[in-house]
């Protein structure tokens, strides 16, 4: 069986007045059925735009300028809007960061979920509400049938995100794209939702792309991780080996800035500088200006360094030097 998702040389650009913002610049990866993939990067690294590109919801003035997204063998780039819509919610679903903003405050959650059910093949209002109630129970909302008539503001933040997740799960999609779904939640709720998402995905064989700026969250959840910087995937590989021995200096920097990785009492290492403007990227490696290992050669495009199951985009990868 072929991979569920094959993304090749995806480029999503925003044509703004100030110039072309290359938010996603040549991203390639594959995703197996049931696999959990972590997509990590700082704000503006292009991770969210990658997610929106996959589901065909890039806001203008952004658009996919080239590349290919094959979902279960079907090409999604250039697919007719109607056929793309038929996939959305049915086979590919998405969960967003802030459940307070995603749920419609003036509709009952039953009504909202019923709309999502009826978007794919109608059925009666009653059947739609039944399915909604069953799915809410699956994500751990007690007394779900009675809660259908409640409004989003009557739920806590964690419960609201569960409602959003249930909405994504309604049609049993093969792929869920989760765009920082725990960032807006309390830490204790974060851990709960994380564990539940993992369990739900494993149970139903749903593949999950978990977009996050937080390497720690991803490490507890994902099978494989992609690290994005300035619209490119700079490193990818199985979570354990990437965390243990990162190839790219940027990944190293991300790891060093995690409090969990530091020794108590020691100052946290942060990456100097900030993400470059995507409007004026330096030639060659975009991370070079912030990189401790940068040399003159970094002004030319970095080569792809591969190890079994792993890849990095760097002139001076860390493990290579050690080896």
């Amino acid at each position, binding site marked *: 069986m072929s991979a569920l998702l094959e993304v090749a040389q995806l480029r999503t650009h925003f044509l703004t007045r100030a110039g072309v913002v290359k938010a996603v610049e040549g991203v390639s990866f594959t995703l197996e059925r049931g696999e959990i993939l972590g997509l990590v990067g700082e704000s503006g690294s292009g991770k969210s735009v990658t997610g929106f590109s996959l589901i065909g919801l890039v806001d203008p003035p952004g658009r996919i300028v080239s590349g290919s997204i094959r979902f279960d063998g079907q090409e999604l780039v250039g697919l007719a809007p109607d056929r793309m819509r038929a996939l959305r*919610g049915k086979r590919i679903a998405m969960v967003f960061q802030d459940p307070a903003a995603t749920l419609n405050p003036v*509709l009952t959650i039953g009504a909202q979920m019923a709309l999502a059910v009826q*978007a794919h093949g109608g059925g009666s209002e009653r059947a739609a509400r039944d399915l909604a109630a069953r799915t809410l129970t699956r994500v751990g909302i007690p007394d779900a049938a009675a809660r259908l008539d409640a409004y989003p503001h009557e739920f*806590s933040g964690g419960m609201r995100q569960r409602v959003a997740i249930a909405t994504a799960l309604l049609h049993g999609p093969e792929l869920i794209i989760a765009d920082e779904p725990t960032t807006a939640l309390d830490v204790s709720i974060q851990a709960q939702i994380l564990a539940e998402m993992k369990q739900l995905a494993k149970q139903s064989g749903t593949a999950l792309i978990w977009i996050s700026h937080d390497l720690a969250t991803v490490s507890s959840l994902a099978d494989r991780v992609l690290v994005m910087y300035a619209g490119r995937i700079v490193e990818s590989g199985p979570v354990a080996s990437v965390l243990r021995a990162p190839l790219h200096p940027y990944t190293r920097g991300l790891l060093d800035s995690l409090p969990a990785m530091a020794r108590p009492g020691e100052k946290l290492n942060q990456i100097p500088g900030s993400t470059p403007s995507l409007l004026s990227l330096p030639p060659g490696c975009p991370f070079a200006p912030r990189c401790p290992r940068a040399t003159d050669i970094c002004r030319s495009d970095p080569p792809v360094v591969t190890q079994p199951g792993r890849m990095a985009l760097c002139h001076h990868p860390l493990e290579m030097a050690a080896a």
Partner: protein
Amino acid sequence: MLGYIIQRLLQAALVMLAMSALVFVGVYAIGNPIDVLISPDATQDIREAAIRHYGLDLPLWQQYLAFLGRLLRGDLGTSFVLNIPVTDLVFSRLPATLELALASVLIGAFIGIPLGVYAGYRPESPLSRGIMAFSVLGFSVPTFWIGLILILTFAVNLDWLPAGDRGPTVEVLGVGWSFLTWEGLQFLLLPALNLSLFKLAMMIRLSRAGTREVMLSDTVKFARAAGLSELTILRRHVLRLISIPLVTVFGLEFGSTLAFAVVTETIFSWPGVGKLIIDSITSLDRPVMVGYLVLVAFLFVTINLVVDLTYALLDPRLRRGGRAA
């Protein structure tokens, strides 16, 4: 919810009291109606008898209290000029204005909101630009001019619709209504269209601004991600989210049209209350002025109350004392 309504009713009563005092004092300051009422060559005796008869010799506060006392019994006094109870006078004219105002606000809403939502949904399309240009026109061209042009076009040149007057009415609940017959509707159409132009422009602008904002929200993105069609998103999500400012303006416009449709009523010789207030001002018919203004204040207070209650219906977060998590 009940506590909220009671609280709002008390507020409304206070507003009414303040308003009646303001109106009474304001109209009192305008001038002495006695100079208008009796001929200048009347004898001093007749003059004083008239002043006593209308209670104009009493101090202002006594006049006001007497007025309030009558008001509570639903009596707005008797017209100085026509010698008819003000209540009868106003209520004989009010249905015509009510009908006209409601028709114009409904036209504004039912045409304006879809146009505005479309313009907000596709802001760059030529049709949207046309809609917006039209709304600028609706704001800036004076009502009386539009009225005259409408008459010139549809009544004089094309001879499709009558140029003015109210035409035949049908009695329902003891009141005459135009909208129940085809012929009556023809009389109603032009003045209603004339009055609705401004409201149309307003509804277009408001619903466009609301739609543009809501279309960028995560709610719409999430609905799209769930595979909802664009039409369903607009009808079920966007319309509900933009409805609160629309209801506000609908209410306010309805109230102000009821009270001040004067220009249109004059142009189309529509026998409504606008004409009545203008006549009473020129003849310093104090009871009619005061009675009318108090009634208008009452209408505004009522409409605002209804609007506030509608908010609670539209936005569950405003239902105080409702179910809570």
